């Protein structure tokens, strides 16, 4: 069942890629949407059949591959990967739908997006370290090309920077994986059979260091973040949606799955440092966001800040905090996708993202009032206003982290206040006041521009009002992850008890 999530987009990518050259642009777009839609629908089917009470991996598929290397085709899902798979399915559809219909080299473009979906799905499904790494690396190639070919003016620079950073990330992750396997004497790269408890603490810390930096680049955490604003600014809107919405989550997913889960002893030792690192990331990201004049860069820095909350929750390592981290991944995926989508619409219609140029876009007659209203909803969700999914996830993160790291949590909460500051600056500059003369004659905003944002906004509100519809998928898994790894949170809780 799970291979469908890899094969469907793969077949779609191949089919579109090998379409005859003269075929209509619309055909490749329609095909891509059909395959992405099927992929998304399949994740929903899986969710419907998912056993909420089962701790172990579900729908597992195992095919021996290269015995000599210990590499097997082993897939499975649990409550950590399922929400992210659904998110990937949804955002791939939205990214494809939001793509300019007149895009250059459409067959190549749509193929790459579907290939990206293959890489991300594979990484979330992989139950084998090496298989994860292969999918993780596979995802880099289409993303690099999507930025380098369809990006903005400095796309070459941004794409290369992205590639260098993530290549280093890949090397560090691979080195840590190999270290874990070889040093622990595991017979294969299978996650289930890996036991790192035999390793000395120092070795574990070194291995965890590699994983932390490797995935820290992907998340990204300060100071490994500098590739992200450049990549976002130069990437087209659909790519930014995927990048912020789901690709960054590979980093946090990896951190939880391979860092906290596989190296619990080292994790426990480094957790206070991680919490402090989270604080630095949150504050640095927020302060940088305040200083931005480019709307997209502001949202990009906001992402850096908000990903810090996940690290804080991961450092706390209680069942509730890991649930909060998972929730924050999905929440940030939806909210950042919405924000990038809306910034993209603004840029498409006005030709600018500069807060010094834009003004009064909320104008009910000549502006884009619905886009502005959705932007207001998005920034409120990002700032953790109750009634939206951002509030629930941040509340769980702070509530669960506070007993373990009170100071760090309080400072991170300050970051939520800073989110309100920079997004108020954005709203006030770009959307309120008289419509600026530079953008007085805006073209029409069509429902096709608004529809993806409306869908995301509805989800943000629905999950904000009824968070259990989201939490229920992950609760068993996150609780089990903490119990089996016996890390910081439980120790702290038992100490308090």
């Amino acid at each position, binding site marked *: 069942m799970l291979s469908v999530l890899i094969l469907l987009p793969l077949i779609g990518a191949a089919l579109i890629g090998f379409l005859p050259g003269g075929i209509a642009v619309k055909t490749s777009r329609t095909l891509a949407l059909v395959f992405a839609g099927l992929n998304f629908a399949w994740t929903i089917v899986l969710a419907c059949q998912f056993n909420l009470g089962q701790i172990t991996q579900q729908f597992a598929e195992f095919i021996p591959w290269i015995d000599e290397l210990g590499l097997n085709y082993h897939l499975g899902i649990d409550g950590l990967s399922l929400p992210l798979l659904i998110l990937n399915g949804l955002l791939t559809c939205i990214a494809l739908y939001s793509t300019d219909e007149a895009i250059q080299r459409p067959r190549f473009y749509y193929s790459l997006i579907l290939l990206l979906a293959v890489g991300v799905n594979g990484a979330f499904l992989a139950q084998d370290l090496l298989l994860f790494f292969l999918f993780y690396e596979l995802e880099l190639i289409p993303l690099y090309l999507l930025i380098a070919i369809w990006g903005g003016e400095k796309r070459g620079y941004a794409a290369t920077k992205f590639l260098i950073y993530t290549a280093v990330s890949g090397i560090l992750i691979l080195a840590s994986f190999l270290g874990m396997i070889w040093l622990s004497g595991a017979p294969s790269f299978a996650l289930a059979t890996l036991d790192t408890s035999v390793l000395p603490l120092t070795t574990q810390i070194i291995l965890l260091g590699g994983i932390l930096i490797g995935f820290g680049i992907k998340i990204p955490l300060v100071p490994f973040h500098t590739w992200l604003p450049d990549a976002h600014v130069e990437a087209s809107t659909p790519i930014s949606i995927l990048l912020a919405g789901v690709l960054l989550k590979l980093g946090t997913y990896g951190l939880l799955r391979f860092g906290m889960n596989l190296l619990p002893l080292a994790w426990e030792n480094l957790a206070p440092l991680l919490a402090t690192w989270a604080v630095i990331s949150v504050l640095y990201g927020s302060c940088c966001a305040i200083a931005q004049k480019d709307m997209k860069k502001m949202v990009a820095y906001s992402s850096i800040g908000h990903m810090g909350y996940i690290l804080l929750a991961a450092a706390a390592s209680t069942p509730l905090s890991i649930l909060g981290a998972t929730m924050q991944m999905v929440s940030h995926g939806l909210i950042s996708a919405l924000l990038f989508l809306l910034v993209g619409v603004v840029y498409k219609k006005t030709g600018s993202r500069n807060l010094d140029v834009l003004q*009064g876009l*909320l*104008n*009910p*007659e*000549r502006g884009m*009032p619905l886009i*502005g*209203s959705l932007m207001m909803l998005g920034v409120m969700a990002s700032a953790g206003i109750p009634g939206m999914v951002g509030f629930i996830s941040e509340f769980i993160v702070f509530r669960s982290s506070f007993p373990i790291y009170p100071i760090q949590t309080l400072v991170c909460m300050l970051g939520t206040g800073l989110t309100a500051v920079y997004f108020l600056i954005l709203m006030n500059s770009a959307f*309120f*006041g*008289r*419509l600026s003369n530079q953008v*007085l*004659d*805006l*073209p*029409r905003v069509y429902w096709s521009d608004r529809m993806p944002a409306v869908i995301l906004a509805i989800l943000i509100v629905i999950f904000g009002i009824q968070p259990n519809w989201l939490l229920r998928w992950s609760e068993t898994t996150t609780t089990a992850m903490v119990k089996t790894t016996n890390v910081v949170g439980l120790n702290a809780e038992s100490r308090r008890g």
Partner: protein
Amino acid sequence: MLDTKNPNPTLIDRLESGEALLPNTPENVMEVVGILKSYAVVLDGYSRNLNFFAETQFLLVFPFFKYFDGEITFSKLLRHWWHDRLNFEYAEYCMRGMLWHGGGGLDEYLDSPEFMANSQAVIAAKFKHNLFASATNKLFPNFLPEQLRVCAYYSGLGQFWRVMADMFFSLSDRYEQGEVTSIAGVVDHIKNELVAAANDPITYAVKIDQQVYDIIPASAGLTFLADTALPYVEAVFFRGTPFHGTVTYNAKEYQIPADQAQFEYGALFADPLPIGGAGIPPTLLMQDMRHYLPDYLHEIYRRSRRGEDDLRVQICISFQKSMFCVTTATIFGLMPYPLDTTKADERKANRRHIQDWLDRLNNSRLAEVNS
């Protein structure tokens, strides 16, 4: 050349040669005539309602059905609640604008002893059997006469707009018959009709128990042009118009001049773009006019970049253009000497007259409609 503060002295030459403030282009002609046609429909409704109020709703404490024109049915009530009606509030705001800014013979007459005597007669007849109202009138002798002053403005504006509505209907008919083909033709039509109606009397009487009571008798000598048209232009075109949401002014920041004559917030100055948050309509008038636009005007608007998404802003822009035509007609109508005079002193006086008007339009939207 006379001294002028006007940044565009060529406008003086243009007006002297008989051209209008608005450039003469086929699209401008179509826009102006089309918008005035829809304005005529709306003014017709407004004037009927204003006159209805003045004649039948005067001195009512709670005129609940003042927008019903005497026809109170359940279906009309439902339509009212559904807001399927003209925004008669706009007419009332204009009336209050005139009342506030005053000017002209109507304003003077309403402060005269003759008006007070007439109003006391009306009040006495109206509240003959109402002891409470009679006692209130004794205690606060200025209160009920002030209500009648307001009613007099209802009536004055109603009569003014009656003439204007018919004038714009006939303009549209003549345009459709090919008799009006230029902006100068539009201005001529308006000027001629204004001049023709200039001395029409403005009177106001009410009927109580089958007896007619004059509030503004013919003997007061109030006339259409001097006592309603010019105060209306002054109040609504120059000083302030109820264009809700178009611009907000902060009195504490001294954005509103203390001297009323320095007000520059009229229809000729209003920014057609709504300011502020979502959902604020540009004006009630634009909302009303959009229902009665002729097809050819819809066609022009549909050709714009946003189609009819910003219909009310486009209506506002067209409306301002048409108001500059009315202003041109007013300038020409009040010209001290004929435009084609050859006498130097008369030409000088005409030029001074044009210059005075243009000086007042320095900060108006004149530049925008000419761009």
